[in-house]
């Protein structure tokens, strides 16, 4: 576990990109420790805020000694507030958090699949994989063109980029998983990395398994603390011992092996989980 740091950061820039915002946070002491898949927890609301909890965002880019960057969608109150901040504003951040993507030791083929702002960590990841000699295919999907992120940057960082949109406004009409089997076969990928909505992750994990590839999925569970102390962010994950446990996605995740997450049982407590209620008991 990398030690997380809590720092007062200056917003170095904040700009809209498509349906999202791109923020650069000063983070000179943090950036060097960031690995692809880490996230940052951002305090929102400023003086006198009613919002107690931080918002989690994948780290998009980290410039050692200088800054970290995120891509976010203005969704509810906290992100709406964040979208009104300006260059020079000071914001409290905690990073790097979580368990990042596991990188292969061999120069294997890897497919990166992302939905919407799930593309945020993929640039760093593609770079890290290519540094290890991996061939990298990227599939980016979104509901519609304005919700695609990172197409141009990833075209530079990866060997090829395929785009899908639900409405066909850009790239192929359809889902990322429609393009996934081909991509896996093309480069004989041994691993699939995915970041996006739960339904997408589930489908990606299944397709990867079917094609004999491992998958590494970055999940997005609602988190109160982001640092492992509250137990709100759990999901059922099968351990090395075959036992399913309710596991914290902020510490043990957000990245999990796709074949270990019990996707169909997310948001439930499976009856065979470690510590499950006994009949007649709790």
């Amino acid at each position, binding site marked *: 576990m990398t030690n997380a740091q*809590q720092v007062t950061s200056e917003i170095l820039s904040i700009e809209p990109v498509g349906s999202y915002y791109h923020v650069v946070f000063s983070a000179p002491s943090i950036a060097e420790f960031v690995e692809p898949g880490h996230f940052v927890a951002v305090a929102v609301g400023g003086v006198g805020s*009613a919002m*107690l909890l931080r918002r989690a965002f994948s780290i998009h880019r980290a410039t050692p000694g200088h800054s970290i960057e995120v891509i976010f969608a203005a969704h509810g109150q906290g992100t709406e507030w964040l979208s009104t901040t300006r260059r020079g504003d000071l914001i409290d951040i905690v990073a790097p958090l979580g368990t990042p993507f596991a990188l292969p030791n061999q120069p294997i083929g890897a497919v990166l699949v992302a939905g919407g702002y799930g593309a945020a960590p993929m640039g760093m990841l593609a770079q890290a994989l290519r540094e290890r000699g991996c061939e990298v295919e990227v599939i980016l999907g979104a509901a519609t063109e304005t919700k695609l992120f990172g197409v141009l940057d990833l075209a530079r960082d990866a060997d090829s980029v395929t785009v899908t949109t639900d409405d066909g406004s850009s790239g192929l009409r359809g889902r990322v998983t429609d393009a996934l089997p081909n991509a896996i076969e093309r480069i004989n990928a041994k691993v699939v990395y995915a970041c996006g909505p739960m339904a997408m992750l589930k489908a990606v994990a299944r397709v990867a398994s079917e094609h004999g590839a491992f998958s590494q999925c970055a999940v997005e569970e609602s988190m109160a*603390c982001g640092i492992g102390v*509250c*137990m*709100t*962010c759990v999901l059922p994950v099968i351990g090395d011992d075959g036992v399913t446990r309710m596991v914290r996605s902020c510490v043990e995740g957000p990245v999990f092996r796709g074949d270990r997450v019990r996707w169909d049982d997310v948001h439930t407590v499976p009856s065979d989980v470690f*510590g499950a209620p006994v009949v007649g008991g*709790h």
Partner: protein
Amino acid sequence: MSVDLSTSLGSLHLKAPTLTASGCAAAGRELAQFGDVATLGAVVTKSIMLQPRSGRATPRMAETPSGMLNSIGLQGPGVEAFIEKDLSWLSQNGVTTVVSIAGETTAEFAELAARLSNVPGIAALEVNISCPNVESRGQVFACDPYAAADVIAAVRREWTSDAPVLAKLSPDVTDIVSIAHSVREAGVDGVSMINTLLGMVIDVDRMKPLLGGRTGGLSGPAIRPVAVRAVYQVHAALPDLPILGMGGIRTGHDALEFFAAGASAVSIGTVVFGDPRAPWRVAEELSSELASRGYSAVRDVIGLAHR
């Protein structure tokens, strides 16, 4: 001016006035990246049960105005794994540890007390009676003076250590003073208050309660006025009963309110999620608040609002 921040809860001397709150700091380890947990008044561990427990379905939390709801459902590894992994880490790191226990029957509480009695490194026992009593159609122990007293009496019988026993009270009662009376009669050395208030958020898209557990516990600054009132009432009625105060403490100023109302020490819960340094920061701020008002020791302000 340097302010003496040491205090005590009954026979337990505390080098610092701020503790973590049960369920809001796990067993201390994760907070260690943000500060030295050995310098805190104590770490109060997540309520532990006899057996491992998976907790409730997610979503387990909802942010609410100046607060949050949680329905964790006491997820935990069970007391044996807790002793082995968590307590040992806390001991090795010199952390003052208050162990919180929870059960579904009076017997479970008693068994936990018995099991923990001879385990070294426990500075106090916090008995979380704000759990549903399965033998009483799920009524929360802390909501019934008799059930609450039964649990405390049972724990007291099994607890052979000198470390004080605290009862953690629920605010969801018509008369919290009567519950405090009752657990005091049953032999507690102090009370922790308040636990969360029962609340609910509806997900109006799914038209269902949002939380997996349907209802949840409301915590955070939203409930602070209720907590301060509860501490004030109990201190007024039982001025000698030590109180560990909590409920929405965010700043040293907030903590000072609790001391003035009658708390002898305070726990920082929900606010830690937004600010992992809060237990240390609040102590520092408390020191300045006291100094700027000319007090030289936190002990001097305990219950001062009752004059």
